[in-house]
């Protein structure tokens, strides 16, 4: 959903470029259904023994859900790349800093 700032007010301009670049209502519902299905799968890991696949499967499902919401509901996939840079810079900085901090406390060796 690209933001064109020269189109300042809704009343002043009849068309909004965002509509052209977003998804349809059906598309949003489909994404929500996929997210709900993944959540159900996540919850099933609490009841069903997935063995050694338990942890990787949960983490992968978490990451998939995260990026689906960010990409489609937050429109980062369709928006200007600068917005992606701003957000992912913070995200990857956080992941890097805190993985390093946890490693310092030998968290991953437990």
């Amino acid at each position, binding site marked *: *959903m690209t*933001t*064109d*700032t*020269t*189109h*300042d*007010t*809704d009343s*002043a301009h009849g068309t*909004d470029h*965002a*509509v052209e670049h*977003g998804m349809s*209502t059906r598309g*949003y*519902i489909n*994404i*929500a259904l996929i*997210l*709900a299905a993944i*959540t159900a799968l*996540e*919850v099933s*890991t*609490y009841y069903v023994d997935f063995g050694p696949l338990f*942890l990787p499967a*949960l*983490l992968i*499902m*978490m990451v998939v*859900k*995260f990026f689906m*919401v*960010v990409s489609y*509901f*937050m429109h980062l996939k369709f928006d*200007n790349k*600068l*917005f992606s840079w*701003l*957000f*992912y*810079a*913070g*995200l990857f*900085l*956080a*992941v890097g*800093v*805190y993985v390093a*901090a*946890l490693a310092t*406390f030998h*968290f991953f060796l437990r």
Partner: protein
Amino acid sequence: MADTATHEAHVTSTGLSNVKLGMWLFLGSECLLFGGLISTYMLYRGRVSNGPTPEQIYDIPFTSVSSFVLLMSSLTMVLAVAAAHKKDDRGTNLWLTVTALLGATFVGGQVYEFTAFYNEGLGFTTSLFGSSFYTLTGFHGVHVTVGIIMLMALVAINKRSRVPGSKSETVEMIGLYWHFVDIVWIIIFTLVYLIPV
């Protein structure tokens, strides 16, 4: 004159909305805030002292329903944004209100959960696990509550047709905040509730 000033105020060197740039920058910085809280919880989740352990008190079916409710509020939020872009005020207000109600349901569930945990012996100072758990989920709950207030305030302002500037952009900014709160919960639900100590 005033119209010209308003119009020029939105012309930026990047060609992008400064409001939106600021919001994404804010959300990037929020990753650092929640990253700190989540890693603190991960470090201390096994430090239960004499209090209850996570396995003893977590109610996974209940939290799963709460998570589902918050996830679906992201759908209603994106429908509100879509309605705002179509200049459908009625639809915008409807979906914003539904989003706020789903958010309130989630917060209500969190209050119930905190009360149940407290009654089972997990106070804020019972153990490092308790402190880090309440701090993390409490911060998230406050974020959801702030989101609900913003949603309801926007509905009230929109009904009076007094939304300043671009209405669709205002709805979109609150939507970004709301979705962020949702993605934080996606991480918390997995790392805090589903992965055992």
